[in-house]
């Protein structure tokens, strides 16, 4: 069953088509990878899905419901939450307070929110940082904090925007394990990533975007052996 359907979504900024006529669907419980060269429109697509931009054309159907025109907060309450390519910690709040803000989406009790937040900190293995200020964490831990905070809103679909960007191999490996752990708990995920090795390992299916258009879609093996993808990444002369 598809939890998310993208139907011919286009997004124009003036005359520029950041996304044009992109369609695909994400199956419940799977990980969908979203790749493409810089400027391919991956983050724009995330913004269209999560309510930051209204799509210029097309439809976003989540959990059987049309999402066009809904604000990000509403999108979150319906079960879709995203992280940010450039991390956005609530810098002057402690780590636990950051995650509590997420948990408060479904409860008004601080006590309950704190318990939920602590659970999520354990999931991302940041419980030892509980009382640290979020702004002072190193980048690897800030990325994990983003994930914990998003998980605390109890999503049905988690959208990760380059959650491994800027991390060293050891940190990336931890994030890969984390994503697989989250999948094992049955949560559907959509992941933007530049690290091809990582995306190959975690994705069930991959959508490739170039210049705002969908180039192809398939299993990781299908995608890497696709001549168009090789051309898009390496240029035709190298092929």
């Amino acid at each position, binding site marked *: 069953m598809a939890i998310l359907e993208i139907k011919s979504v286009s997004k124009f900024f003036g005359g520029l088509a950041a996304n044009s006529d992109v369609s695909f669907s994400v199956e419940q419980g799977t990980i969908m990878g979203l790749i493409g060269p810089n400027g391919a429109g991956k983050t724009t697509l995330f913004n269209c899905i999560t309510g930051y931009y209204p799509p210029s054309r097309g439809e976003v159907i989540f959990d059987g419901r049309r999402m066009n025109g809904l604000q990000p*907060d*509403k999108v979150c309450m319906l079960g879709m939450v995203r992280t940010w390519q450039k991390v956005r910690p609530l*810098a002057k709040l402690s780590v636990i*307070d950051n995650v509590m803000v997420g948990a*408060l989406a479904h409860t008004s009790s*601080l006590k309950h929110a704190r318990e939920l937040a602590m659970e999520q900190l354990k999931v991302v293995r940041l419980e030892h*940082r509980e*009382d640290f200020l979020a702004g002072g*964490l190193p980048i690897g831990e800030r990325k994990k904090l983003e994930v914990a905070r998003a998980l605390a*809103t109890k999503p049905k679909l988690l959208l990760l925007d380059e959650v491994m960007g800027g991390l060293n191999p050891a940190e990336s490996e931890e994030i890969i394990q984390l994503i697989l752990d989250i999948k094992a708990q049955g949560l559907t995920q959509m992941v933007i990533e530049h690290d091809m090795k990582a995306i190959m390992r975690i994705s069930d299916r991959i959508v490739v975007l170039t210049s705002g258009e969908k180039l192809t879609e398939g299993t990781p093996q299908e995608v890497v052996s696709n001549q168009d993808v090789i051309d898009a990444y390496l240029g035709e002369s190298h092929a």
Partner: protein
Amino acid sequence: MTKTILKAVVGLILLAALLVVPRYVESPYALHMMILLFLSVSQGQSWNILGGYAGQYSVGHAAYFGVGAYTTMMLMHSKQVVPWVGVWVGVAIVIVVALVIGSICFRLRGPYFVLASIAVAEIMRLSAINLTTLTNGAEGILATEIPAFKIGERVITDFLTKVPFYYIGLFLALLTIGITYWVQHSKLGYYFQAIREDQDAAHSLGIHITIYKNIGLVISAVLTSLAGAFYGIYVGFVDPPTVLGLDVSVQIMLICIIGGMGTIWGPVLGSLLLVPLSEALRSNMITEGLVKVGLVSADSRVGLFLKENLAHAHVLLYGILVVLVILFMPEGLMGFLKKLAPRRNREAV
């Protein structure tokens, strides 16, 4: 645990001391200073909720202060409505005003919000000057006779001394501190701070930005209008510059910025510093002090110059103080004190 008990004990002792002050202190001047302090705490604390916690730097809080003061005074003066009823009319009007202002200004972010908030307060000030039939224009409203406060036939107070004002002021200060405490320890406070730290991130976590900003504004505006009404009745006179001027808005902000934004005790510390300071400057206490310790002779040119000018320079000195605080204590007095204290929330290295 023992720390909490200690804090509670200290708090109770302080509270008890504040409650009995009027029994032992008879000097009207001392009581007057305390009343100014309470007023300042409640102003700063009201601003703190919107500016310090939710991060929306309103430089137009004079609008709410002035509307609260004017409504109460106008009703008392021309309609003989007792102030403890009039004040609630003021609150009702301020809620409407705040929501109108919020719906316009909260479309804007950062510096644009600041400018819009100034503009709105200026509109209020100009209206007060020009709607002469309603507000008596630039002449202001003088209403010094407050009807006695009775329950049944029993007169509780006739407002002839400063003591009733002392208790009202104390109540107002405690109320604003209490509400700030409640905000900080509730979902509301978490959401306000999330909006302050990163509006887009907050939005993605299910926070309805506009609703929460408006809740913050309404709480803040209502408390500010209570302070305004209190000021009006206490002084017995309101006119556009004293309750609606831009410097009123700035003054309200400064209490909080200098004390420490987004903390419960920041506005209290700010008031403890600013109220005596501004009083000392205004009343030429500093020149007199310098003369007394013999640093400056009263008849010398320097002495005469200081006597002549220092009182007028209090705005200048105020400005210098703000610059110093922003340069050396960007988190205000509270932030400065926290840095001195052993750090519990040490940042990760």
